[in-house]
């Protein structure tokens, strides 16, 4: 059988496949998890992933941008998978979730620094679970004998002091927005954002009463419509600077997004440097390289960003 390359799209997912006799590569985009933030497009080294702003007619149904992967350009490296803050893209090789780019240290993993203290978690599991806007926290309880129990409040007094709270956080899909830290009691959970940056809304450009960005943002409470001026305002405490809002916004320059750094596992890779440059800026890349002391790479960036006429000098 010859090499078969296929691309299938449903309402739920977009999937691409390379079916070789001895290997099967599959890249699947979960459309329910994808928010249309463009990070995959910026991270992709082959410019295979395109994020397009919704057109006027599409806006009736959905606000978020759509992601499309070019089968001819995609090389199934899985960088989009590694870069997606929402864990919406998965690469599998022969059915196994395998990322050679991470194993061979060509691309870092985003540092999801999350520490939870079960003792400080609220007793009410619903309250704890609701603290996550993406519903990634699941609380279970077990008795000393290991038996799971549904509702500790129904337990008798002696058992109640012995039960154990298990906090399960779906780290693969966690965006580290830190919304939970403000909703849960002090010290219950520590989260560090993996993207830092700045999101500004220009009130003169923002259309009155338009909530397209707010509807797109998956982290409730980050964007809100102020009743005072009927404009959108941003609460950066829980913003992960993914940029989904910017793509959903129909007005140019109404939203200003700038990512400055990305927290990741230590790495030395040209692919990452270029991805970082696109995700942040050449200046921010230089900053990171400076910290790493990588003179050679810094020089390469300088050359590349230099105006054409000065290059020969």
């Amino acid at each position, binding site marked *: *059988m*010859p*090499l*078969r390359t296929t691309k299938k799209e449903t309402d739920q997912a977009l999937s691409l496949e*390379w079916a*070789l*006799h*001895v*290997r099967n590569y599959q890249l699947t985009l979960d459309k329910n998890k994808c928010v249309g933030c463009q990070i995959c497009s910026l991270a992709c*080294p*082959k410019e295979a992933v395109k994020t397009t702003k919704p057109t006027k007619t599409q806006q009736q149904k959905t606000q978020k941008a759509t992601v499309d992967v070019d089968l001819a350009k995609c*090389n*199934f*490296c899985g*960088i989009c998978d590694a870069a997606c803050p929402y864990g919406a893209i998965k690469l599998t090789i022969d059915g196994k979730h395998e990322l*050679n*780019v991470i*194993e*061979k*240290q*060509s*691309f870092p993993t985003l540092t999801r620094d999350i520490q939870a203290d079960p003792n400080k978690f609220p007793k009410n599991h619903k309250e704890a679970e609701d603290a996550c806007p993406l519903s990634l926290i699941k609380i279970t309880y077990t008795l000393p004998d290991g038996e799971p129990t549904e509702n500790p409040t129904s337990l008798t007094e002696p058992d109640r002091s012995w039960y154990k709270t298990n906090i399960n956080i779906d780290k693969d899909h966690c965006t580290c927005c830190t919304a939970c830290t403000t909703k849960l009691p002090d010290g219950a959970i520590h989260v560090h954002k993996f993207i830092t940056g700045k999101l500004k809304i220009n009130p003169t450009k923002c259309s009155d009463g338009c909530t397209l960005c707010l509807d797109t943002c998956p982290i409730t409470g980050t964007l809100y419509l102020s009743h005072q001026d009927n404009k959108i305002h941003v609460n950066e405490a829980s913003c992960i600077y993914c940029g989904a809002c910017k793509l959903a916004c129909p007005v140019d320059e109404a939203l200003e997004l700038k990512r400055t750094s990305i927290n990741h596992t230590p790495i*030395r*890779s*040209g*692919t*990452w440097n*270029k991805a970082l440059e696109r995700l942040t800026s050449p200046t921010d890349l230089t900053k990171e390289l400076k910290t790493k002391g990588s003179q050679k790479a810094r020089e390469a960036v300088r050359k590349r960003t230099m105006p054409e006429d000065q290059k020969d000098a």
Partner: protein
Amino acid sequence: MPKKTLKQKPPTSQKPKKPLKTTQPPRIGVFICQCGTNIASVINVQEVTDYAKTLPNVVHAENMNYPCSRQGQQTIKTTIKTQKLNRVIVAGCSPRLYEPTFQTCVSEAQLNPWLFEMANIREFASYCHKTTPKEATEKAKDTIRIAVAKTRLLEPLKPIELPITKKVLIIGGGIAGINAALDLADMNFKVYMVEKTETIGGYMALLDKTFPTLDCSICIEGPKMVDVGRHPNIEIISYADIQKVTGNIGNFNVKIRKNPRYVIAANCTGCGECRDACPIEYPNYADMYLGVRKAISIPFGQAVPLTHTINRDYCIECYKCVDACGARQAIDFDQKPQEITINVGAIILSTGYDMYNPKDLEWTGYGKHQNVFTALEFERLILAAGPTGGKVVRASDGQKPHSVAFIQCVGSRDINHYEYCSSFCCMYTLKHAVMLKEKYREAIEVNVLYNDMRSNFKGYEEFFNRAQKSGVKFTRVKLENRRVTEDPKTNNLTIHAETENEEIVTVHAEMVVLANAAIPTQTSPEIAKILGLQLGKDGFFIECQPKIRPTDTSVPGIFMAGACQGLKDIPYSVAQGSAAAAQVASVLSRDSWSIEPLIAQINEDLCSGCGVCESACSYRAISLQRKGDKSVAKVADGLCRGCGICSSACPMDAVKMPNYSDNQIVAQIQAVTEKKAILK
């Protein structure tokens, strides 16, 4: 049409200056050949001889049996002396056959070979007018009269000597090219081998076994590839394309584009550490895309040169390979395509073939049914170093099939696709069938659906018998109405066909292997254009003469070997490689190459530099060159075939064709018209 043949004359040191002048009045001798009964049974040879004696300037005419024989030639030589002949005509067969013989004969009698003329009274008279001997005799007379008219005006000429660059270019590094290269390098000629892909070896390097001996293919070819790689006289220019070829026999100027590998060949040790560090895989063409290779890698273990290549279509530029390579510093992401120019005296074309993709043939189900394979895919499956480690497994479930069916003539012997027979499919199918049967014995059922079994070389028929004895079932079916269907549940296949007696044949198999046609390479038209060669109707390069000059092309100094000329198996390709090498050696071993002076001569004083001749020339032999303050046409001696088109096209009458001058042709026309056809 003027004729021009390359002849091997002893080289003479001086170049012709001015045409030699003959001052004496013409004394023509006419020798009329009986050619056994070929001529004499139709034409009244004596009547023609008597007629020839009456023609002006003819001082001697006689007829004889076989002037081409040793005795006949001796008679001609003696008569030249005794009759003081200064022009000789032989009326007999086509000049293509015996003109060189007679030219040598007259020159041995101290007569300039271009003062000899042939009148063809065999093909043009006795052969084509067998039933009308009287008219044939008259036509023979006419032909001789015309020849005499021209011969009177013939001028003595001197051969043209071309210098020889003692280097050869071989285009294509398959088994034919490899063999030619080694032969020539061992004869101490410098060999450049240009290969389009990353490694030499061609298709043979991808095969598991060779028929009919079942020798391991790469075990035979590998050492030869290595020999080519390290021979001091051979320079491999791989991953490169031929851009332009100018010049002629003895001195071709070849422009080559070396594509960037992004790896510095001199620094790469082939250790493979970069490959281990690389995170990216992509489908490997050398595995027929059944398996994968890294973005920096070699296509297969025995590749020559053992230089890695980065495929920038897939590379993500993480530079992990750069780190892995370390101090060797072999990786250079800034590498650009490089143009180089080489000078060679001769060229061997050995560009091989391509495989037809049968997905256009819907009846085969190829590309649709998972367990339908092409023969080369099967070859990679059964190969121990292949992507499955030699396990023949199905694509649908990874299981070993219990039955395999081979379908012959897929795309070939089909007037809608490729009319010709691909020549080696029968034998490789027998090889595959025997390998399967000998490996799995009773555990596998092997069926071959064929139309004609072509096993016509040494040991091949015996191999067919071996296949039959090993339990392979052969069913002869018609090429029409064959169809492969799939059971969607089990992915098993059924082949429907008909016998010659229109009986229905149904064969069930868990795997189907197609003997798909081998076809001309995709690049053939481009290469043909660059080298000025012609492709046949079938798309393969045309040889100069299919029977006796199979490795010559129409361009002097360019030879060919292997499947680019027509499909052939390994031993035949190897033999042609050596044959072409011997021909190249016969050119390169000379100090100069002598060609007949019957080529265009430009009178630069008359030439206006208009360029009409340049565009009229089909051999790209004329180019405009600056001379002082004007452009003049210049003829490349080795390329001009003496066809005379430029001469007729020239508005200034500046092109002269030696011994086909206007007054000679006019004299011939006058000779035709002076006596009307006798029958009127």
